[in-house]
């Protein structure tokens, strides 16, 4: 930032010049690897169409943001926030989601070990109860959204939460760290399960990657002594 002493104006160097564009992450497994829980058709559409569209539109919005900032068009900067939140959120959420899933032969569905396992029992009673809670909250989401299993870093506890549309978990609390997110937008299950979202939720647990959730939990747990 430079201060023009003569006129009292400040100018901001364009801060997004070296901005990295987002790109579609590869899936860590084949498109049919999560069957029968999630069909290959869904995985292909979900990754190659839906997630790719969020990435493309996020990059476009950031590009517009760069232009708007450069020209000092603050009205446009504000107007772009909706696109950035929606598409950026879509990218963030789906990037987590692919890691939240794993083929059965790579540990998908295998219950978590300690310390996450004990923490789950302490907070929810049992893994079964956690799953039931997430299923019922996921089924009850009105419209499109996500159901999350998260860690509240500040309160040092595990939580179940939902977000609307493509809002990331952090919009529900900045200390919330997503451990598992389950997409309950209709595109996540419709070709296979039709309107039966509850059936999709029941089956998805067979491919949930608890290893990844444990890794995240342990990473954040290192600083917290109370679990």
């Amino acid at each position, binding site marked *: 930032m430079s201060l023009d002493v003569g006129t009292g104006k400040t100018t901001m160097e364009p801060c997004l010049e070296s901005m990295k564009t987002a790109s579609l992450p590869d899936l860590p497994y084949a498109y049919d690897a999560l069957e029968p829980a999630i069909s290959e058709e869904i995985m292909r559409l979900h990754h190659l169409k839906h997630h790719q569209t969020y990435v493309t539109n996020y990059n476009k919005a950031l590009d517009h943001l760069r232009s708007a900032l450069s020209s000092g068009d603050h009205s446009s900067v504000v107007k772009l926030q909706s696109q950035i939140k929606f598409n950026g959120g879509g990218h963030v959420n789906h990037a987590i989601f692919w890691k939240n899933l794993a083929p059965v032969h790579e540990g998908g569905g295998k219950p978590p070990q300690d310390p996450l396992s004990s923490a789950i029992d302490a907070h929810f009673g049992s893994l079964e109860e956690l799953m039931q809670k997430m299923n019922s909250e996921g089924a009850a989401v009105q419209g499109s959204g996500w159901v999350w299993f998260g860690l509240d870093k500040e309160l040092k506890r595990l939580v179940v939460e939902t977000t609307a549309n493509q809002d990331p978990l952090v919009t529900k609390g900045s200390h919330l760290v997503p451990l598992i997110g389950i997409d309950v937008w*209709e595109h996540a299950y419709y070709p296979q399960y039709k309107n039966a979202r509850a059936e999709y939720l029941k089956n998805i647990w067979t491919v949930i990657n608890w290893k990844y959730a444990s890794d995240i939990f342990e990473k954040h747990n290192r600083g917290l002594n109370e679990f």
Partner: protein
Amino acid sequence: MAIRSLASRRTLAGLKETSSRLLGLRSIQTFTLPDLPYDYSALEPAISGEIMQIHHQKHHQAYVTNYNNALEQLDQAVNKGDASAVVKLQSAIKFNGGGHVNHSIFWKNLAPVKEGGGEPPKGALGGAIDTHFGSLKVLVKKMSAEGAALQGSGWVWLGLDKELKKLVVDTTANQDPLVTKGGSLVPLVGIDVWEHAYYLQYKNVRPEYLKNVWKVINWKYASEVYEKECK
């Protein structure tokens, strides 16, 4: 009208309030799924028979069922004077009641081609569209663009603002009826852009669904509503 088999025939019954029960000092009415005015496959190729059947028999039926459940619970809560429960129920009432209201309008907004689906509006509504938007083509383009841009689930509407006496295009989220955008708004045409409305046929390509749905839009119904409100 051609004779159709009982299994596939659906006749218009509209919103019905079929039974009322007396509970304490109040009686509540239950709502039922209105019949479709046409066969499930009658809107093909714009909207597949598979989608119409699931949309009507599963999605709309679920809204009706859950709306009735919520109203029953509301009745109990009101009778007990449990204001907290009354407030808590509003979300379920709005969502499911809205779903019922919106879909009941939607089935009337659609018609098979041979029954006038897609035929442009004439008379007063046709004139009003030209006045407010320039042409039907411009209106269609605007609604399609706003419908495609809707983030998440919702509806895109052509409505009449009774107070300002003008036509408007607006969107609502989830199952919010158009009236939530303004107390004087009357829905003329609503298009469901929830993924369940098109996914089985169009997959992620919502704009393609929006491009095609106009071929089965029932402008006759929209004109009737418009003329009625304009009296």
